């Protein structure tokens, strides 16, 4: 009736439950079963970035301030993040997933996809549910007995993710043409992965109030009226279990942003921080073996205003100094005001040409010094050698845990 995909469900989504908090409970047996959480750096007003299930049951949510969490539960334990620990869990999870299929894709540090298409012959008659239970057991024996995962199985990535979130924690569910309608009947729009408040409001404006209404909505209406783009068609197909998300995204920009620790309008405070952000951006560029032609700087102010400027250059650049010089030109043009958040990104990325010989002596010198500094930092740890302009910035800006992509995890770990 709805044109639902009737193929066999061969996509498995694996999601570690409250990954950072559970990893800490695994490492600290005394914290198991207790409300606890993890934050980047402990301070009076720091935020909970991961909460254990015991804490969530009390109403402590991710993003909540420490003081709010302590008001709910005075015995709430908050630990600082330990990136190497989470990386070890992440690597072990990848290792387990790779024993089932080479077609795996990590969506972030705590969730990934196994695509079983073309792997039917190695299943030996076992269902994906059997494999799911086996992976759950292997996670317990190979990573730790406290570790729990949600497993979702679907005909596409979207339904597999929905299935993984159906019965948390420690759930295993499959969504296919036999139970898709039943699943949608109990769902609000914002329960669906990828539909947040703004999309929800847009759908509401066209009389789509819940997941079932969304499924019933005609493709033409979604494409031409609601989303006003091809996204409408993508959603129409995605909801019916057709794969719309199996594509590689190309690297479009590389940068770093920072929520200013003490909002300020003073150059002597902001410039070293900008320099530090440029150094991190340069490291990322070279790590991804690309060079940039464009640089952009943006600032959001205490009063809610936003400023942004970008500039394209004729030649490519990749050194920290070049990025800082170009970013500083833009940053100095910003309107006066107290800066709350600032960021820099580079764009128009092209493959690195560092290995090519240059006719110009000064270019070769810059290349050599950059390579030498990178080698020192690689051997002794990131930021062993860095620019004097970043000296104060390094003291102020703390390294953060990558929540989204895991592309820079190895780079982050070198700081340890």
């Amino acid at each position, binding site marked *: 009736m709805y044109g639902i995909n009737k193929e066999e469900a061969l996509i498995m989504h694996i999601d570690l439950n409250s990954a950072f908090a559970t*990893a800490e409970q*695994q*490492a*600290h*047996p*005394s*914290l198991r079963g207790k409300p606890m959480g993890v934050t980047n750096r*402990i301070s009076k007003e720091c935020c909970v970035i991961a909460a254990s299930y015991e804490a969530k049951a009390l109403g402590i949510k991710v993003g909540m301030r420490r003081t709010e969490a*302590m008001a709910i539960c005075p015995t*709430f*334990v*908050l*630990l*600082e993040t330990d990136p*190497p*620990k989470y*990386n*070890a*869990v992440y690597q072990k999870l990848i290792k387990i997933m790779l024993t089932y299929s080479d077609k795996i894709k990590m969506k972030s540090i705590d969730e990934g996809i196994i695509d079983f298409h073309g792997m039917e012959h190695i299943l030996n008659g076992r269902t994906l549910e059997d494999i799911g239970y086996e992976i759950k057991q292997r996670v317990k*024996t*190979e*990573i*730790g007995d406290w570790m729990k995962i949600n497993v979702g199985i679907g005909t596409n990535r979207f339904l597999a993710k929905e299935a993984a979130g159906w019965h948390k924690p420690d759930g295993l569910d499959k969504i296919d043409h036999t139970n898709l309608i039943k699943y949608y009947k109990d769902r609000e729009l914002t329960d669906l992965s990828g539909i947040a408040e703004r999309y929800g409001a847009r759908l509401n404006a066209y009389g789509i109030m819940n997941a079932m209404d969304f499924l019933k909505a005609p493709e033409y209406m979604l494409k031409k009226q609601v989303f006003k783009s091809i996204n409408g068609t993508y959603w129409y197909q995605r909801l019916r279990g057709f794969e719309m998300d199996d594509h590689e995204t190309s690297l479009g920009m590389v940068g770093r942003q920072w929520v200013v620790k003490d909002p300020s309008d003073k150059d002597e405070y902001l410039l070293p921080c900008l320099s530090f952000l440029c150094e991190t951006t340069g490291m990322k560029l070279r790590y991804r073996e690309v060079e940039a032609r464009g640089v952009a700087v943006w600032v959001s102010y205490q009063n809610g205003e936003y400023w942004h400027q970008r500039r394209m250059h004729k030649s490519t650049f990749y050194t920290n100094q070049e990025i800082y010089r170009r970013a500083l030109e833009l940053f100095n043009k910003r309107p006066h005001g107290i800066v709350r958040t600032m960021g820099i990104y580079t764009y128009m990325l092209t493959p690195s040409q560092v290995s090519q010989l240059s006719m110009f002596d000064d270019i070769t010198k810059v290349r050599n010094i950059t390579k030498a500094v990178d080698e020192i930092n*690689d*051997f*002794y*740890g990131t930021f*062993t050698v860095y620019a004097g302009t970043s000296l104060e910035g390094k003291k102020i800006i703390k390294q953060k845990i990558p929540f989204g992509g895991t592309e820079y995890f190895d780079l982050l*770990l*070198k700081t*340890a």
Partner: protein
Amino acid sequence: MDPTIQINEIVDVVPIFRGRASEINVCTPWKMKYGIHEVVFTKLGMRHPTAKGKRMIHVFDVSDGINDYRLEFDAERLIWTLVSMVEGNS
């Protein structure tokens, strides 16, 4: 509150190396002498590798049934360091 107590002291450790064991149990600290106390570990929470520059460090999170201890083994200098502990009643 963060219940972690930072210690950072080199300690004497008796480890067990098992020839036939799962990857996570190949090497486990068995007991440690810390000051005048001898602590016998009953549970290995997690082991993971990390690096200080290019130096390989093995981190062992262990428990004596009451308190949790973080031990680091420097694979280059062959030194065990008791980095921190979390008291079980915290």
